[in-house]
């Protein structure tokens, strides 16, 4: 369990500036990655690998399952048991794999379109079951792989290739949705706050049950360009740095000051029986009746 004070103290600082060696986790010959200059996915990947490393989990026991989209290319670069599946379906493959072998720690890498539009039904049902999956939603507010269409998290009024006159669709809040559907660990981080993100991913990974992390990681190539941010860093500062406040900071702010800001940090945490353990108990009780 982490306290807000610990959250503010990222793991990396404890390691006294010994550079982290990513190479055991990166598959030889698979870089460079496909992500655009200015995209935060590489930053998120670093936080992710440091968090998995901190957990002490053997690479043989980690499975990474993704759907379709920019973020879903992540499994191709990392040396785990990796499965790159269909658009929207990562969670369902991950569910089958986790139930087939509950010893595996299963990470789901997905995006806002993948998880919340085409895969929305799977997303809420995974949260409902509380199966031990760590679902990382790389939220870039758009479909980056297919060049910038409106996604379920596109802010109203923003421009996209399918919302050329400004988006009129109300967006989903990933975290509110996850909490309502029953996820037992819900948090938000950003690529900008990468040290805080590492801590959040570590917590999510260690949490037993369905954990969802909404990672704000805007797309400079399409979302940034169409919405006239001066540069990738300008967009990152506006959306990720200034557009969010930590849960702790938020306590001191008025509702007016919080208007339009996304909360960062652990937004919900609860204890509920984990699905694969419950299934295991069912098996044990039935087999003892024989």
């Amino acid at each position, binding site marked *: 369990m982490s306290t807000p004070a610990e959250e503010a103290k990222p793991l990396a600082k404890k390691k006294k500036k010994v550079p982290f060696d990513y190479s055991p986790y990166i*598959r030889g010959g*698979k870089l460079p990655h496909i992500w655009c200059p200015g995209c935060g996915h590489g930053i998120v990947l670093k936080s992710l690998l440091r968090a998995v490393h901190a957990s002490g989990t053997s*690479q*043989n*026991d980690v*499975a990474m*399952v993704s759907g379709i989209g920019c973020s879903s290319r992540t*499994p*191709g670069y990392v*040396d*785990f*048991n*990796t*499965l*790159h*599946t*269909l658009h929207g*379906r990562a969670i*369902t*493959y*991950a*569910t*089958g*794999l*986790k*139930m*087939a*072998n509950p*010893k*595996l720690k299963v990470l789901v890498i997905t995006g806002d379109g993948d998880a919340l539009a085409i895969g929305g*039904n*799977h997303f809420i*049902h995974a949260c409902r079951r509380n199966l031990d999956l760590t679902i990382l939603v790389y939220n870039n507010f758009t479909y980056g792989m297919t060049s910038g269409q409106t996604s379920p998290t596109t802010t109203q009024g923003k421009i996209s290739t399918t919302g050329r006159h400004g988006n009129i669709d109300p967006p989903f809040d990933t975290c509110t949705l996850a909490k309502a559907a029953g996820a037992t660990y819900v948090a938000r981080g950003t690529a900008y706050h990468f040290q805080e993100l590492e801590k959040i991913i570590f917590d999510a990974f260690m949490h037993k049950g369905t954990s969802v992390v909404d990672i704000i990681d805007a797309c400079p190539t399409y979302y940034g360009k169409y919405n006239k941010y001066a540069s990738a860093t300008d967009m990152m500062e506006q959306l990720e740095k200034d557009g969010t406040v930590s849960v702790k900071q938020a306590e001191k702010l008025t509702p007016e000051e919080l208007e339009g800001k996304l909360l960062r940090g652990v937004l919900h945490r609860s204890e509920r029986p984990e699905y694969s353990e419950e*299934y295991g108990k*069912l*098996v044990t009780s*039935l*087999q003892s009746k*024989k």
Partner: protein
Amino acid sequence: MATNKKRFMQGNEACAEGAFYAGCTFFAGYPITPSTEVMEISSSRLPKTGGVFIQMEDEIASICAITGASLGGRKSMTATSGPGFSLMQEGLGFACMAEVPIVIINVMRSGPSTGFPTGPSQSDVMQAKWGTHGDHPAIVLIPASVEEIFYETIRAFNLAEIYRTPVIVLYDEIIGHMREAVTIPQPGEVEVVNRVKPTCAPSEYKPYDTTLGDIAPLAAYGEGYRFHVTGLYHGADGFPTNNTKLIEEAGQRLVRKVEDNKERIWKNEEYFLDDAEIGIFAYGVSARSAKFAVRELRKKGIKAGLLRPLTIWPFPDSAVDALAERVKTIIVPEMNLGQIVHEVERVARGRCEVKGIFRVDTEPIKPAQIIEKILGNGPMPSAPVSPTDSNMSEMLIERDMLDG
């Protein structure tokens, strides 16, 4: 060895029993008439035997979950019917592309759309082959009795494991809900095949390595072989490629691994075919009508015979070719508006007449319909001709009656 007990059971029950016999330890599904009993029985049995049962939120999730579970090392299956089978098509293509063994049961009901949920049909025979996009291998088995569902489900698992590909078992609602006696064999009596696992060092493992043949060994996630699987075209190491030469090779091999082994996958029953002048090509419940018709026609001296495929895909070209070579007419009765008849016509290449008997009213093809088609066909001018189904059967079916 214990005596094998004869049990009176439903087709869907025989399917579940066949799956358990074959070593299936994972079922994910979504309820749908008329296949739900397979799921219900799995939900009861699998937790008791240490297997996994999970009810998913829809059929898309179901086929994806069994694919994930198969990559986790378990023999996995789902069961569905028309609407659910339609939803599964993308996941089916993924399992073909990623070469993951899974078994899909489709208990065919009336369609399109919701159709008549409790009404039988045979109208998914083409979808089973062509439903998912892109060129891909298809192995589809089509049993015609309750006992055959048991054995063909075992065979489906064996073929899936051998060829690292999805295998579909298709049967109509009539066979699925019908009850007949089945004698369940003891463990070991029927061959059960398990996928080939890699023996190389994990660092050497390539999940699509074809240096030793078209089908590479398949490791399970969590065994130390950390490999990559994707629905993108990929090279031997499993990683995506846009090399057109590799894509061509991979596409060709995917189809070839089944095509080159079709003699091993084909399975046909021949009934009175040796001297037949009229051949009937029928599958599933329609083949049972055809058998009845053949016996009645033989009593009338008409040389009719039946060719019944138990493997509908790959299509039994050589058996149909041999039939077309020696009969004057091939009759193809189907509970659809003409699907497999076109395959028969393709193979017959005009060497004999090919005539279909089709219906989609959810009633089975009546034996009398087949008899009438053949009698109306000319070879026996003296044979009775009857205008309707019901009096036709009464006229032709002569049986010794029991007392009472």
